[in-house]
């Protein structure tokens, strides 16, 4: 029996387990040695480029590819006709609709895919696009979601049998209509607002693309692709292309941002695969930025009508009626039973008596999508609505917006709390988090400053938002996507040397998984994080799971890794018992070793146990050798992170330019695995929220032409528009999660836009009578609001 003098020692710089650990993956990125999709070159590889429709709605009269085919560097031009013979002209979407891979009869949005060129190099492929002649017969376009269901609206989806109108998804309801009517009837105060969450775009810095490499001899399809759910994509391709799933390998190496934009299967992917199958060489397709903005998964586009009421100073009821613009094909991503995603979390952080929510989805002549951009499945829309309504109610009641929230919060003793729309929130101490934010902001001092400035004609606004969101989808009894359970796997193998490899289903696009998941194993087993290799992104080498979006990595894959680590630890206990000639029940654990209770010198470190597990020496009765385990984790519930955000804005009274002076964010995401990584996630999301609130929008003219199809007009904040974020934390562990962690990636996008818009209105209400303005709060739109005529985005 060996004694161990030195366990690896943790330091503040290098915690063994949770803590502020610098990232392992940085090493390649700071050297410019990441492997992003466009960095990959395969022998014999050719390049694809996509011809897209200039019209939002038009019949295709003819497509003439002869000039393109005559180009010396062009290998093939694929149109819908060619895909029809392969059964690939249309593909299923996550929402059980179909989407055209290449347009055959009609084009239904500007930017829709019409033909796919394959050439020797990128420049030639782009040239060849100019040589394809398409004759179109333009049709009137549906651009305004409110008008999509007018009796005279043009029918977009005439490809669907029995489709008579532009309804994409019938009205979905949650809550209790009768109880809500009662609450409103008994209320002291009622406010009503029409609020739009405009269409915006996740616009990760790396656009979407794929290399498809089909080997006709072996039947193996190798796919290189930055996507957020590789296993789900593999299943879809097997289904759509009639290929054997076990012969498809998807490798996601480094991904330059996802934010939900890299969840869907895009026509470009299917064309690259088809091209490779037909041509027998690798086909690379990488979209340009315009393509990314006009054709890939956009976010939001919710037209909302809401009413909120209060009685005796407390919020009591909420009604929300929503038209969701899904674009030309319904390809939103959400669990099957939740066609409006988690929008019904619009009941918010408040102890309401009743609420009632209705959402219907319509088609329009715009790109398909809607669920993206860190939205947590429509939680961004829901929280925006409820937090704007709370402020509207506070204005009407003439009370401080924080006071109204404090009086209406769900109290700590009420958890687990079942909301009026059927959620069971896990844990929370909302008032505490709100207080921390107020103190960090110096709320009273800010109100004093505001009053002084107002007296001098200067406009300053303080905006608050408090959010509860639901993440970590989800329990198999409630949630599936395309019939696939939203469970994640984890495989943990400890090698004879005591070093380990953990393979996970989650798919990082910058969230730091190579570090944080190593930290979970380190926390549970005491193996230093640098000795734990995290494997992901390769469907051949990682367990089946549904990937990373909806902030699910920590709640689901994190849960899986904790559970699998504990399985390994339990097996290690049995082996240690044999090694120490003690009963396993008489052993105690300190991070990294099992030791005999009452005789701490007598112990076995995890490295020794691993060596033993692979050696020829005696093992516990009936136990197999090796030290590894496998788990598929089914989360018992979502987790419910929350936060209190305060924004301080200054508005130029003459030009109406809004600048964000300060942003205070206090997040409670339960236990934090790596506080540095958590803070980084929050910084990024807050910057995106500022973008959404002040400048990001996809607008269209009456003919459906997209007016923000490049980064010249789709504006993203730079370092000059973002303040020095002030972050705080409270920690209320999640009672059902193995680590007590909740996840945080999307919280900052959820909470920040309402805080900023509330701040803008707060700056302008008293002096200019503004009680609502829709995003984005550009100088022109804020000025119009100040003149008394706020305009919706379109």
């Amino acid at each position, binding site marked *: 029996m060996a004694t161990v003098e030195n366990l690896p020692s943790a330091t503040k710089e290098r915690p063994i387990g949770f803590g502020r650990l610098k990232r392992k993956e940085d090493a390649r990125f*700071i*050297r410019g040695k990441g492997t992003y999709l466009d960095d990959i070159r395969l022998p014999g590889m050719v390049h694809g480029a996509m011809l897209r429709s200039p019209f939002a709605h038009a019949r295709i009269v003819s497509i003439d590819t002869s000039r393109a085919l005559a180009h010396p560097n062009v290998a093939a031009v694929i149109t819908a006709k060619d895909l029809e013979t392969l059964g690939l002209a249309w593909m299923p979407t996550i929402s059980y609709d179909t989407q055209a891979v290449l347009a055959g009869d009609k084009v239904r949005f500007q930017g829709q895919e019409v033909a796919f060129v394959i050439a020797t190099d*990128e420049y030639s492929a782009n040239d060849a696009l100019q040589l394809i002649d398409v004759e179109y017969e333009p049709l009137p376009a549906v651009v305004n979601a409110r008008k999509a269901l007018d009796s005279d609206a043009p029918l977009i989806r005439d490809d669907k049998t029995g489709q008579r109108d532009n309804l994409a998804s019938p009205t979905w309801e949650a809550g209790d209509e009768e109880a809500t009517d009662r609450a409103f009837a008994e209320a002291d105060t009622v406010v009503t607002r029409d609020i739009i969450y405009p269409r915006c775009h996740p616009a*990760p810095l790396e656009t979407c693309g794929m290399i498809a490499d089909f080997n006709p001899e072996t039947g193996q399809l190798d796919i290189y692709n930055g996507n957020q759910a590789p296993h789900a994509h593999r299943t879809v391709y097997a289904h759509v292309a009639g290929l054997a799933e076990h012969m498809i390998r998807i490798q996601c190496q480094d991904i330059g941002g996802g934010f939900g934009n890299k969840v869907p299967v895009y026509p470009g992917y299917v064309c690259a695969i088809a091209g490779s199958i037909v041509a027998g060489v690798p086909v690379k397709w990488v979209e340009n930025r*315009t393509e990314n903005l006009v054709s890939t998964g956009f976010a939001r586009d919710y037209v909302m009508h809401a009413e909120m009421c209060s009685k005796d100073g407390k919020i009591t009821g909420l009604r929300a009626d929503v038209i969701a613009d899904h674009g030309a094909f319904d390809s939103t991503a959400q669990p099957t039973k939740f066609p409006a995603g988690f929008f019904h979390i619009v009941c918010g952080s408040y102890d309401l008596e009743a609420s009632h929510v209705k959402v219907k989805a319509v088609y329009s002549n715009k790109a398909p999508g809607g669920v993206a951009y860190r939205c947590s499945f429509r939680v961004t829309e829901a929280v925006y609505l409820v937090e704007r309504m709370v402020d509207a109610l506070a204005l009407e009641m003439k009370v401080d917006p924080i006071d109204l929230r404090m009086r209406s919060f769900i109290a700590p003793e009420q958890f687990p709390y079942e909301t009026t729309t059927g959620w069971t929130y896990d844990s929370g101490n909302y008032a505490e988090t709100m207080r921390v934010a107020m103190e960090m902001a110096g709320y009273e001092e800010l109100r004093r400053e505001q009053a002084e400035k107002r007296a001098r004609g200067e406009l300053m606004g303080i905006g608050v938002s408090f959010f509860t969101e639901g993440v970590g989808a989800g329990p198999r009894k409630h949630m599936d996507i395309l019939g696939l359970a939203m469970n994640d796997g984890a495989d943990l193998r400890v090698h004879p040397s005591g070093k380990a490899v953990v393979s996970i289903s989650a798919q990082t696009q*910058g969230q730091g998984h190579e570090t944080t998941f190593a930290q979970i194993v380190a926390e549970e087993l005491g193996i230093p994080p640098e000795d734990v290799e995290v494997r992901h992104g390769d469907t051949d080498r990682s367990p089946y799971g549904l990937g990373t979006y909806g902030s699910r990595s920590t709640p689901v894959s994190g849960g899986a890794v904790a559970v699998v680590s504990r399985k390994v630890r339990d097996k290690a206990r049995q082996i240690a018992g044999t090694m120490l000639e003690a009963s396993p029940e008489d052993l105690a654990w300190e991070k990294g070793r099992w030791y005999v209770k009452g005789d701490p010198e007598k112990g076995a470190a995890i490295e020794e146990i691993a060596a033993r597990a692979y050696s020829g020496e005696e093992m516990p009765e009936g136990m197999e050798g090796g030290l590894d385990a496998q788990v598929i984790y089914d989360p018992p519930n979502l987790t419910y992170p929350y936060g209190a955000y305060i924004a301080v804005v200054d508005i130029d009274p003459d030009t109406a330019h809004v600048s964000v002076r300060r942003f205070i964010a206090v997040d409670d995401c339960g236990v934090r695995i790596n506080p540095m990584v958590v803070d980084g996630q929050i910084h990024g999301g*807050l910057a995106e929220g500022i973008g959404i609130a002040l400048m990001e929008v996809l607008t269209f003219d009456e003919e459906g032409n997209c007016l923000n199809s490049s980064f010249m007009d789709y504006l993203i904040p*730079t*370092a000059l528009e973002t303040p020095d974020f002030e972050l705080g934390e409270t920690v209320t562990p999640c009672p059902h999660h193995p680590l007590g962690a909740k996840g945080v990636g999307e919280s900052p996008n959820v909470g920040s836009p309402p805080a900023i818009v509330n701040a803008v209105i707060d700056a302008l209400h008293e002096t200019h009578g503004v009680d609502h303005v829709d995003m984005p709060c550009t100088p022109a739109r804020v000025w119009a609001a100040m003149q008394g005529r706020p305009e919706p985005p379109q």
Partner: protein
Amino acid sequence: MDVSITVNGEQISREIEPRQLLVHFIRETPGLTGTHWGCDTSNCGACVVQMDGEPVKSCTILAAMCEGHEIRTVESLEVDGQLDPIQTGFHETHALQCGFCTPGMLMTARALLDENPNPSEQEIRTAISGGICRCTGYKNIVAAVRWAAEHEATAKQGV
């Protein structure tokens, strides 16, 4: 046409089309895919390299225009296994997440420090305002540049 361009101190000679952009010339050079691209309209800064010591957007320069000039890419920052302080700074302060904007930010920041060894927060924010980052919200990037400035100053003092 034939061009010969000095990249990271080495002459690279190649036959190209006049229309080839510098970013593509660089990325087609073995080992030099660290310079990225992210837009079509010179807005995002993912492609920033140094030309004669100044940060430039390599997607908006023809390779042909670079003959007779010195191009430096992110791969030139590490020398003989020693990271540049700006690289260490990014790692220390968690100034990168997906890493896609990082090379452009590093080359911009390196040029800033070469010209202004002690930049203020505002000067840093201005210097990097030609680049977009979707992941970090810029706060830690600013901290990284300050870290590098302070460590270079200390190194110069012989501490």
